[in-house]
């Protein structure tokens, strides 16, 4: 008898809680945001942009992300879990786009619109509202333009690319190359350093053997340009060098007068725009399929303010 009573009490409690939760004031919109991770600075800033926008607009934000960017199954489970919470919109950044197709089809079945940030889905997959991310070609052009402004016609330039087949890096280098060529610079060498600092270092050492008169460097990310910088310094050369990402090391190097600049991705804006577009999607507004979250050229003039802003985000 006592056992039965206990069960009854527990059931009543569960029931009461369910009712309370159901009766709580319904927010304007419930957004489930699943990022690649919440544990790196880059993603914390995306999350901060989304949180600020959600607070401002009275949006309920469920924010999830696995401990690391390669925990692919965990991330897919998280998307499933936000689907089952009946969110109104999903904001998603796929760690492994090819493996995320089925789970996005589940979202489609439940008629939950999906907004992609930072990373798009494979060509041919079109069941999303919009993809908000850096226009890498434009980011490369911004870097190329800044570099060209520091050089004169006929100067030799070194371009350092990411892994072959890494579209974001390849596009950045392509953008920079177009602008530099148009401005009359000579591309002395264009090689991949696989987004790795040490490979950027070795590559630059080798290139300097054949082309000791390199007058400028553009690399598709900061890790590679920082490696390249080290090789240049050891060879006793000081030339304008530009990377992409504006990570902490790069910003500090810029402030120290070593790197000339770095192109910052608009990751805070990615989060902010995602929430704004989620509201628009719910309201049935027409939204562009591709939104550029912007890229800003960081040099000695504005590096400190970006560094301060980053530090202000926990």
């Amino acid at each position, binding site marked *: 008898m006592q056992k039965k009573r206990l069960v009854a009490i*527990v059931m009543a*409690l*569960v029931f009461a*809680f*369910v009712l309370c*939760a*159901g009766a709580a004031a319904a927010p304007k919109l419930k957004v489930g945001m699943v990022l690649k991770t*919440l*544990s790196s600075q880059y993603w914390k800033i995306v999350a901060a942009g989304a949180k600020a926008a959600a607070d401002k607009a009275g949006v309920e934000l*469920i*924010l*999830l*992300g*696995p*401990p690391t960017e*390669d*925990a*692919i*199954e*965990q991330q*897919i*489970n*998280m998307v*499933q*879990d*936000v*689907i*089952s*919470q*009946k969110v109104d919109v999903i904001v998603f950044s796929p760690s*492994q786009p*090819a*493996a*995320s*197709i*089925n*789970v996005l089809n589940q979202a489609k079945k439940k008629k939950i619109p999906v907004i992609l940030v930072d990373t798009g889905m*494979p060509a041919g997959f079109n069941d999303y509202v919009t993809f908000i991310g850096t226009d890498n070609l434009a980011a490369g052009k911004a870097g190329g333009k800044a570099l060209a402004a520091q050089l004169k016609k006929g100067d030799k330039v070194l371009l350092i690319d990411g892994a072959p*087949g890494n579209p974001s890096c390849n596009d950045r280098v392509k953008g920079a190359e177009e602008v530099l060529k148009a401005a009359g610079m000579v591309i002395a060498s264009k090689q991949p350093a696989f987004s790795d600092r040490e490979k950027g270092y070795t590559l630059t050492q080798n290139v300097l053997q054949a082309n000791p008169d390199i007058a400028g460097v553009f690399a598709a990310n900061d890790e590679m340009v920082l490696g390249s910088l080290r090789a240049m310094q050891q060879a006793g050369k000081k030339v304008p060098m530009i990377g992409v990402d504006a990570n902490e090391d790069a910003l500090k190097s810029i402030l120290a007068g070593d790197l000339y600049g770095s192109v910052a991705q608009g990751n805070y804006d990615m989060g902010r725009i995602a929430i704004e577009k989620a509201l628009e999607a719910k309201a049935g507004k027409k939204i562009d399929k591709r939104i550029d979250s912007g890229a800003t050229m960081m040099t000695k003039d504005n590096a400190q303010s970006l560094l301060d802003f980053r530090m202000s985000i926990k």
Partner: protein
Amino acid sequence: MAHEREAAAAGQEAKKQKPRKNMYSVGVILSLILLSLVMAVLSPRFLTVDNLTNVASQAAVSAIISCGMFLAILTGGIDLSVGSVLALSTMLMGVVCVNHGVDPYLSMLLCLAVGGGLGLLNGLMLTKMSLPHPFISTMGMKMMARGAALVITAAAPISIFPEPVQFIGNNYLGPLPLSLFLVAILYACMYLFLTRTATGRYIYAVGGNKEASRLSGIKVHRVLNLVYTLSGFTAALAGIVLVGRVNAAYPLAGQDYDSDAIAAVIIGGASFFGGVGSIGNTIIGVLIIAVLRNGLNLLNVDSNYQTFAIGAVIILAVYIDVLRQKVMQVGRR
């Protein structure tokens, strides 16, 4: 003489284990129910059909891997290579099936054969090369298989599999994922194998006392080879379900599953020293981890706390086991 005495002691131990095992079963099941109740109270979304089928489909891959892991741990060993074996066997399946257009059923057979073959290698390293502990042989295999999986396509994922490969991982019968039925069949077969066949009993015996088993005529090496082959096989089988679930094979697949499977088996009460454990409790261990992860996701809890929580649960589960053994020992004296 000494061996006989040991064997006799092992026999007595086994007899005494019966009530102890049942006690633990009740404890594990109660923990799962309690955990589910807490989650249900905290999140109104937890006890919905949608969400419970989610948990089932999320737990399926881990459940299948844990089945093989249970056998390895039951023999007093461990299989650290399961996640990597899953990745390599599914990548090979992807290469032949998607890139070379080989028949999907044949490709799946190949996947299972590769998994079983890699498992057999794990066993042979132990029995023929006499490596001192499966921790070493399977750790070596873990790295080799992961490396090979990355090399095959230069780290690129393979996607869009034909329907037969996706069948189990991506389809539902009513609200129930098909993978759930596969898990049920696998666990039922494993239960019958372990309790109703001589080979099954040998696995317990080898885990209880290798030397005594050898002396009583059990071909210990053959049993160990079989166990690691089965562990590789179940990893590949889990891989097919995973590929079906996400419609892609990728070289970093299954990384979380090594430790999740070990954790599930340990939480399910299998002894790390071998010879003690029940396959039924292993599935409860799998569910405890799945409910914990799912529930914390529903509650919007940072994933780093999930990792922390599962770690704490493992230590708690083993500590309870240690305490119970101490009590038993005092009782025996």
